């Protein structure tokens, strides 16, 4: 039997679904022109599915810092953080992240995925209990698999269910570690973090919050949902990524716990991979500076999100529960979602197609991510085209 035979079902499902539409796993941009525009199949497309929330990928200060680092320190570190892969810029970025969050220390990872993988799998040891939200990102699930702890899912955004599951553990030894996210990546909903923090305090658990999609967006200083909810003191570990609001790649974890830096010698996804290239570190330091000094970026991303969400809602689409920079349209079925996604590209709009089992509740979603760099004209054009395609495919009622 072929090594790949086990994936026959998945392959057949994808082939049956795609039929005459483009393969979403094979989209290749000819050229990216700006945070909101690219060329695809030789034609211009509006980028509305790139997580580029603050539009910093072409920010002159970020580009200049990146180029300077490239010229001064080369294309890559060619080593891991525990060997030759720590430059002064890596340490400086860690210091800046810690300062930004007001935490004692921060550790950077080569991707956001690895930040969750490393932090969670290392912290949650044998006899510990890891409680993860049912809608957690794949990196949290994979970290759970890698850990030796007992892993329990709690109902999505349900603090009472979390408390109930923690109560079931009464009398059993081991640490309780709760993992939640600021903004959830598929539907764009926020966690009830104040209530989750209250459960954490009551039950004596530890709390990890992944702010990947909320960094730069929520909170007066852009620190994410914990800041917006006023519970930063309850969060034992903040996790985040450089690949969304900060326009590059990489991830981090920050904490006040005195032993946090022990992770540097026990966390395998940190230790046994090459460190981020200097050019990435340079642009992220500049992007963090931009985020810290220009509060209008996050505000603009949110107002653009409300504009898109409001327009689509008015057209009759079924959407995720909140107008955050992730705006998800619920489609009637996977086939219609694929057709809708394909037609939007025909009409010059790139969004994400999200299908089960990658989605909560087996939903078929058209997932947009809104940027501060989008203009009102671009958002209105997207609403108009999505509405027309929605009517054409019977997703929403004809006028």
């Amino acid at each position, binding site marked *: 039997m072929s090594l790949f035979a086990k994936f026959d079902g998945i392959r057949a499902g994808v082939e049956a679904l795609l039929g005459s539409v483009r393969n979403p796993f094979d989209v290749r941009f000819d050229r990216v022109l700006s945070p909101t525009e690219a060329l695809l199949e030789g034609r211009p497309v509006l980028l509305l599915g790139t997580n580029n929330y603050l539009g910093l990928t072409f920010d002159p200060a970020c580009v200049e810092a990146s180029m300077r680092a490239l010229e001064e320190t080369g294309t890559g570190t060619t080593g891991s953080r525990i060997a030759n892969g720590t430059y002064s810029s890596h340490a400086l970025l860690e210091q800046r992240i810690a300062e930004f969050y007001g935490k004692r220390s921060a550790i950077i990872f080569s991707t956001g995925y690895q930040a969750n993988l490393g932090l969670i799998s290392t912290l949650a040891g044998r006899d510990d209990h890891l409680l993860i939200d049912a809608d957690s990102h794949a990196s949290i699930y994979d970290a759970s698999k890698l850990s030796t702890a007992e892993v329990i899912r709690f109902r999505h955004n349900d603090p009472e269910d979390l408390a109930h599951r923690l109560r079931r553990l009464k009398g059993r030894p081991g640490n309780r570690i709760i993992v939640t996210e600021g903004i959830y990546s598929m539907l764009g909903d926020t966690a009830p973090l104040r209530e989750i923090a209250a459960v954490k305090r009551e039950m004596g658990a530890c709390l990890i919050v992944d702010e990947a999609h909320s960094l730069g967006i929520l909170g007066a200083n852009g620190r994410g949902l914990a800041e917006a909810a006023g519970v930063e003191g309850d969060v034992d570990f903040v996790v985040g990524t450089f690949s969304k609001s900060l326009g590059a790649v990489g991830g981090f974890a920050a904490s006040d716990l005195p032993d946090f830096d022990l992770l540097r010698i026990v966390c395998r996804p940190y230790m046994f991979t090459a460190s981020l290239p200097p050019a990435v570190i340079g642009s992220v330091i500049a992007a963090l500076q931009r985020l810290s000094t220009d509060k209008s970026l996050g505000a603009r991303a949110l107002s653009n999100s409300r504009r898109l969400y409001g327009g689509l809602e008015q057209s009759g689409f079924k959407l995720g529960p909140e107008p955050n920079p992730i705006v998800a349209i619920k489609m009637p079925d996977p086939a219609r979602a694929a057709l809708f996604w394909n037609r939007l590209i025909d009409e010059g709009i790139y969004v994400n197609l999200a299908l089960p089992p990658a989605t909560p509740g*087996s939903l078929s979603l058209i997932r947009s991510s809104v940027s501060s760099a989008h203009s009102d004209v671009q958002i209105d054009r997207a609403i108009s085209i999505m509405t027309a395609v929605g009517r054409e495919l019977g997703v929403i009622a004809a006028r």
Partner: protein
Amino acid sequence: MAAQGSILDRGRIEAEIIAMLSGRVPQGVQVSSETQILRGLGLDSVAILDFIMDLEDRFDISIPLDRVAEVETIADLSGAIETLMRAAR
């Protein structure tokens, strides 16, 4: 139906699982004790995990993900639930 938290034997747990699945599996899918959970129910992996969550509520236990991974058939699942209920007693 027994009160939540009381111990049920494996046969009754299995009957309840099959009854709870009846409204969830696609039409035409017959569920028995030997049905393979991942391949035989016509549900994707997330739908299966969500169903397991309903079982956790029904039997007032938590079924850790590593235990879920070890389970292949409805009979295995019934056995795991019985074991966890006894351990939680």
